[in-house]
């Protein structure tokens, strides 16, 4: 009987465990997590913060799922090291496994700042524990400062807004959501945040904090001082590669994996999700694509190859959907590409921007225009020649863009009736 270990219990880890079970009904699967929870949705913690979701609704699967599928989840168990065939916990146990997956995700990146760190009112926003701590600490008269206007920082801002007096987000880049939005869309999102009571200060960052046990104010690079009762560090994340490094695996920002199989340079040790360097099929570059669907797919690919079944990964690309105070943002692919043209349509409360290069769709940004966005995503993923389509690409997309033959194939999967 094969024995599999999975380190990390989020998107990639759980998807690997589920896939392993379907591939091998007899194998033993152990999922290690240093958190006290069964696998839960990390993106949901901002909804927990603003009370849209309760603490018992964060889980990705009901608890009987793990007994039913015989997946042993070892909570509160930190893994100290892995090697080909063995795993050692911090508690000192050394266990034997046939194959091991590292799905260790990201850790918050904290830039050096003067007098920031040990105070009780400094938070990150990546785990349920931190969300619980933040929710318990936040009071209606407090001024919250968030460093970083990325997905995590802005979700923290949205979640905190109803709980505190003021929320100010400080971002070093010259726009909000710099990793997913172009300049124009970022302006719209910023105005929407402002209208909903979240102030954003761009091109600036925190350099120093006042207060020993508790931070009371922060000083910015520009010299400005903000009152601060609660500081959230959301500058960014970096891949959690500690175990891979200890194992002697190649790490270059993210863990290096075989693009087809997700195996690291240490035989029998695989890696998937935010901790690896993925291959972007759109620009051919290797990069960290810390997004959910990517992690799930890589976890599945790893599972096949851990079980010894041939299965090539289809490659990554960014696709993301998120909303802030009711504004829906949906993005995919590249934000900019050399020699690309941008097709734009704007109207009452919505905006669409499509990036086209060499007659292929390579990216999009949709604000309040998510309808059937998956059609665009498929055009990007399949690198469809736009000359083969009919109709205006900027209209709401649909299957009528395709020829009847292609459309019928998509709808029937080849079934003739």
């Amino acid at each position, binding site marked *: 009987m094969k024995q599999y270990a999975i380190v990390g219990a989020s998107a990639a880890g759980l998807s690997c465990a589920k896939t392993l079970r379907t591939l091998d009904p007899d194998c033993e699967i152990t999922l290690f997590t240093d958190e006290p929870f069964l696998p839960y949705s990390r993106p*949901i913690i901002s909804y927990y913060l603003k009370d849209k979701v309760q603490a018992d609704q964060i889980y990705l699967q009901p608890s009987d799922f793990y007994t039913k599928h015989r997946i042993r989840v070892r909570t509160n168990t930190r893994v100290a090291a892995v090697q080909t065939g063995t795993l050692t916990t911090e508690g000192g146990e050394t266990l034997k496994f046939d194959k091991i997956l590292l799905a260790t995700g990201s850790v918050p990146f904290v830039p050096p700042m003067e007098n920031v760190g040990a105070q009780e009112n400094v938070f990150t926003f990546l785990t349920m524990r931190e969300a619980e701590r933040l929710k318990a600490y936040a009071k209606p008269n407090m001024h919250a400062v968030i460093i970083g206007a990325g997905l995590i920082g802005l979700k923290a801002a949205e979640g905190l807004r109803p709980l505190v007096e003021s929320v100010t987000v400080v971002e070093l880049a010259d726009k909000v959501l710099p990793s997913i939005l172009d300049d124009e869309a970022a302006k719209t999102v910023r105005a929407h945040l402002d209208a909903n009571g979240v102030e954003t200060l761009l091109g600036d960052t925190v350099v120093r904090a006042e207060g020993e046990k508790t931070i009371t104010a922060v000083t910015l690079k520009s010299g400005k001082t903000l009152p601060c009762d609660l500081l959230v560090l959301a500058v960014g994340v970096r891949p959690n590669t500690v175990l891979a490094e200890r194992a002697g695996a190649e790490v270059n920002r993210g863990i290096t994996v075989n693009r087809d199989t997700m195996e690291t340079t240490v035989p029998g040790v695989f890696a998937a999700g935010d901790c690896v360097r993925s291959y972007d099929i759109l620009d051919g570059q290797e990069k960290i694509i810390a997004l959910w669907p990517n992690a799930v797919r890589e976890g599945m690919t790893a599972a096949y190859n851990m079980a010894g079944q041939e299965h090539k990964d289809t490659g990554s690309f960014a696709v993301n*959907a998120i*909303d802030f105070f009711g504004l829906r943002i*949906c993005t995919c692919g590249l934000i900019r590409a050399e020699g690309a043209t941008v097709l734009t349509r704007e109207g009452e409360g919505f905006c669409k921007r499509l990036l086209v290069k060499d007659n292929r769709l390579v990216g999009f940004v949709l604000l309040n225009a998510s309808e059937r966005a*998956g059609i665009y995503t498929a055009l990007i993923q399949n690198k469809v020649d736009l000359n083969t389509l009919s109709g205006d690409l900027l209209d709401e997309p*649909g299957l*009528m863009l395709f020829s009847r033959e292609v*459309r019928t194939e*998509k709808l029937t999967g080849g079934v003739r009736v």
Partner: protein
Amino acid sequence: MKKVIAREALCLDCKLCEVFCRTAHSKSKDVVRAHLYEDPAPVARITVEGDILDSVAVNCRHCDDPACVNACITGAMHKDPETGIVSCDESRCIGCMTCLAVCPVGCIKPGRTAVKCDLCQETGEPACVKNCPNRALVYVEVGGDAQ
């Protein structure tokens, strides 16, 4: 598993599938009330695309390896291992619409939560098929990986 298959050549663009889908997923189950009076208004999970010259009804393909399930950040979107039906547990959906961003046929509707075809699990026969006057929609066994 059994799926709804559209026969484009027979579609009249009458949109009765939309009407009866909306009704089947309404509170009242009454065509007129569902259309005029219910709040929130029930949503059709099937859409007739195209025009009078060339039209086809599009709803969920209940894919073997569903992109929407793989992309769901809460576990609300799931594929039933027994029936193969892909459905959204609306009590667990937070409305991020990541599923809309990845569905290759564009069949998921935005709302307070994501809304999609559940093959009328409760009645056992999809209302769209039952009420298609031209048999442009049929409900047939197509194989796939459901047990």
